C-alpha cells in the first residue's frame, strides 16, 4: 500500500515536473458510510497510486479523475457509496448517503511563451502572470527584451527568435502567443514552434496576413494539421482595441482552451446584445 510519504513525493513530482495527476481525497461522508476520511488516491493517465476503499466507488472516482486531468479540474464532488456521481445541491441533499471527494489536478504551472515584447506582448505577459502562469518573453531588440520593461515575474529572453525558440522547451502545458513586430517574425516563430505539441499556439494579425503566413509554411512542408490548430486571428471576439483589451481577449481564449466553455455571455441579455451587435 502507498504510504503518505509515497503520496507526498508523487504529488511533489507532479507539481514540479509533471505528468499531471488527479489527486482524489475523501473529505466527508454521511454517518454510517464506512470510509476513511482523508484517504487518498492519485489517478494518472494509465495507473493509480493509493486507494480509497476499493469497490465501485473507487473505480468511479478513478474514472472521474482521469477525465478531470485534461480539464485541469479542481472540484469537490459527491458520489453515492455505490459510485454514482451526484450533481446539484438538491440531489445531494436528497441522497441517502454521500461521499465527498476533492478531485484536484496537480501539475506544473503552465508556461506562457510570448513572442514579441511590444505593447501587446507586455500586456499579455502581465495578464498571464496574474493568472499564475510562468511567463517567458522573447524579443531580439534589447529595448523590448530587458527585465526593467516587465513589472512582473518573467523570464525575459533577448536573442535571435529562431535560435531561442528552438532551444525553448515546449510541452502540452506550454501556451504560445505570437505578437511580434511583424508577420515576417511571426512566420519565422511559427515555423519554429508549430509542430512541437504546444497546448496552444495563437498568432496575431488580420485574416489576410495570417492566411499568407499559413500558406507559406504549408508550402514549405510544415504539417498541415499543425497549421490547422493555430488560433489565428488570435483571441476571442470581444471588440478588443487596446493592448490590454487584446490581452484579455487572448487570455480568454487560452482559458477557453484549458477549461472548455461556451465563450458566450452567461446571461440571456448578454447573448441577445452580442447577437444584435454581430
Amino acid at each position, binding site marked *: 500500500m502507498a504510504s503518505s510519504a509515497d503520496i507526498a513525493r508523487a*504529488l*511533489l513530482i507532479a507539481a514540479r515536473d509533471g505528468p499531471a495527476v488527479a489527486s482524489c481525497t475523501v473529505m466527508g461522508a454521511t454517518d454510517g458510510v464506512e470510509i476513511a476520511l482523508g484517504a487518498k488516491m492519485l489517478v494518472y493517465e494509465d495507473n493509480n497510486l493509493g486507494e480509497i476503499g476499493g469497490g465501485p466507488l473507487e473505480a468511479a472516482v478513478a474514472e472521474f479523475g482521469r477525465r478531470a486531468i485534461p480539464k485541469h479540474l*479542481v472540484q469537490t464532488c459527491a458520489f453515492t457509496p455505490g459510485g454514482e456521481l451526484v450533481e446539484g445541491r438538491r440531489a445531494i441533499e436528497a441522497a441517502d448517503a454521500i461521499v465527498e471527494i*476533492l478531485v484536484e489536478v496537480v501539475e506544473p504551472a503552465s508556461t506562457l511563451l510570448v513572442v514579441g515584447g511590444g505593447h501587446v506582448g507586455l500586456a499579455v505577459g502581465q495578464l498571464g502572470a496574474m493568472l499564475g502562469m510562468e511567463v517567458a518573453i522573447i524579443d531580439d531588440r534589447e529595448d523590448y527584451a530587458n527585465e526593467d520593461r516587465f513589472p512582473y515575474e518573467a523570464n525575459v529572453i533577448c536573442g535571435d527568435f529562431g535560435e531561442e525558440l528552438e532551444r525553448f522547451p515546449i510541452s502540452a502545458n506550454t501556451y504560445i502567443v505570437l505578437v511580434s513586430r511583424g508577420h515576417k517574425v511571426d512566420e519565422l516563430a511559427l515555423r519554429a514552434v508549430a509542430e512541437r505539441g504546444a497546448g496552444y499556439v495563437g498568432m496575431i494579425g488580420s485574416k489576410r496576413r495570417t492566411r499568407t503566413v499559413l500558406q507559406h509554411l504549408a508550402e514549405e512542408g510544415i504539417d498541415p494539421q499543425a497549421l490547422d490548430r493555430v488560433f489565428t486571428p488570435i483571441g476571442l471576439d470581444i471588440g478588443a482595441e487596446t493592448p490590454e483589451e487584446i490581452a484579455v481577449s487572448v487570455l480568454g481564449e487560452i482559458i477557453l482552451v484549458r477549461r472548455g466553455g461556451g465563450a458566450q455571455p452567461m446571461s440571456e441579455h448578454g447573448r441577445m446584445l452580442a447577437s444584435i451587435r454581430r
Partner: protein
Amino acid sequence: MPQDEVYEAMSSAFEQGAPVALATVAQTLGSTPRKTGAKMLVREDGTFVGTIGGGCGEAEVWQEAMDALDDGDARMVTVDLTEPVDGEDKICGGIMRIFVERLEA
C-alpha cells in the same frame, strides 16, 4: 494554482519523520479569498507554508490544524466570513469549508 511549496514542505517533514496537518479548501460559497484546492500546511511547531486566505479565517484554521496534530482526527471546518468581526477588517463575504487532516509518513 501550483502547490509545489506545500508538497515540498510535506515531503521534507516526512523525511524527518515529522507529522504535518494539511488544511485544504474543500468548497467555497460567495466571495472568498481563495478557491477550492488552496492549501496550508502546519508543522508541529506551529510554522506553516501556503495560505487558505490571509487574514480571513486563517487563524481559526491554524488552531484546528494544531488540534488535529494533537488528536489525529480529520475534520471539516466551516469558516463563515459573512459576519463582520469586531474591530477587524476581515470581511470577505463568503463561506469556506476547509478539510483539516493530520498526515505522517
